[in-house]
């Protein structure tokens, strides 16, 4: 089956991959210190706008990809909503205890998961893995042996998927039984991992030796097929996020959706 995965190239594709990567990781760390749900809601628009308008992928595909976002939102918020600490009780039933604080904290967590999911998917949709690793080698001095190993493993992935599929059919056709519980889990894990590991390690080892012989791991005096540098777009990308962070901050100062400034529990 051939899946059509064509897309339009936008300015977001042209950003230096290393810069994009580091910036997104920094955003993650920065957002860990944001406890104000109002700010988070305002900031949400920055990645969302990029997702909706600048990835260059068709609408249908974007909608399809967005489905897991909802699941992320639910799974990362529910346990906090149901079982979080809080004093202003809204609802209580057995072990479940929903309070105002726990509800908004849960919501905050859901939004957080959502923001990071969108950022991650935006990155994945607009970055070619090969360019990422070339850029990591050139800008961040990642050793070629790591970069080329990662690239080679990406190429091996389809073969592994195919093997996994074959294995599933083989187990099915031979009527291998499913056990329940932890024992079943182990049996299944073993049935799949042993043949896959054995085959793939042999293959990876062969390829690695060939790559070493062809001096893929050499560090000095390397030339690169793809030269990746910086451009104006990189500046634009950084400014885009800085403006949104500033806007979100200002908006939070003058207007709030909910009257909570810190979702962490500070009662007793």
């Amino acid at each position, binding site marked *: 089956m051939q899946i059509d995965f064509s897309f339009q190239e936008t300015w977001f594709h042209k950003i230096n991959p290393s810069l994009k990567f580091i910036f*997104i*990781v920094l955003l*993650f760390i920065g957002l*860990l210190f944001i406890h104000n749900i109002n700010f988070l809601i305002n900031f949400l628009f920055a990645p969302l706008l990029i997702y909706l308008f600048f990835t260059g992928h068709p609408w249908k595909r974007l909608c399809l990809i967005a489905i897991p976002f909802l*699941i*992320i939102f*639910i*799974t990362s918020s*529910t*346990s*906090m*909503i*149901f*079982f979080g*600490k809080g004093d202003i009780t809204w609802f209580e039933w057995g*072990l479940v*205890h929903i309070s105002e604080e726990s509800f908004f*904290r849960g919501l*905050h*967590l859901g939004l957080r*998961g959502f923001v*990071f*999911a969108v*950022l*991650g*998917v935006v*990155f*994945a*949709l607009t*970055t070619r893995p090969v360019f*990422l690793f070339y850029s990591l080698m050139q800008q961040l001095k990642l050793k070629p*042996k790591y970069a080329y*190993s*990662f690239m*080679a*493993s990406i190429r*091996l992935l389809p073969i*592994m*998927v195919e093997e*996994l599929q074959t294995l599933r059919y083989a187990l099915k056709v031979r009527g291998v039984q499913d056990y329940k519980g932890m024992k079943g889990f182990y049996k299944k*894990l*073993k049935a799949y*991992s*042993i043949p*896959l*590991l*054995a085959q*793939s*390690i042999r293959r*990876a*080892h062969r*390829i*690695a*030796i060939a*790559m*070493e012989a062809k001096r*893929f*791991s050499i560090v000095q005096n390397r030339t690169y097929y793809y030269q990746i540098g910086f451009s104006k777009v990189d500046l634009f990308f950084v400014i885009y996020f800085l403006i949104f962070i500033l806007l979100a901050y200002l908006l939070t100062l003058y207007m709030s959706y909910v009257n909570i400034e810190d979702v*962490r*529990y500070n009662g007793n």
Partner: protein
Amino acid sequence: MKKGLKLSDILVTIIIALIFGLIYKLWGPLYGIVSTVGLHAEQLIYGMWFIAATVAFLIIRKPGVAFLAEIAAAQGEFIFGGEWGVTILIYGFVQGIGAELVFAAFRYKRFNVFVVSLAGAASAVASIILGFYYGYAGDLTLWNLMLMFGFRIISGIVIAGIFAYFIVAALEKTGVTNLVRPITTDDYKALD
């Protein structure tokens, strides 16, 4: 002898990480549904996230392999747009450090069930520490928190520790581990 990992070590490590990523993907979604209830049943297979590190280390037995395996698993998930996005990168990073520290504490010379289980538990603990920042884990009611942590650590020990050990033991019988393991003094003795 050159120090550090060779290209073949790196490639094999990454491949091992990707295989467990694939297996996890195969029946991972099933457990996603369970997790919405909030009782943390999904934590019981959380150890699948750590298994790449311990298996890779048991197979290759070199410093840095456990950490690299976790990074590779997270990176793979990230590059292909896994639904957890950036979060997974950071979690992979700390979990890798957790496992690596345990192996380092034993100077990369112990490969028994106990050490591997400890590494699995260490990954779980590392992810829990991050959970306090990322998931406000400290603001859950105590019983719920204990349930979550208990499940996760048990899972780390059972899956990333015990299961990983037995999987590699079974794999040794296929002979592929001889390809990638460094030569030991025992091997030289066998020649005499």
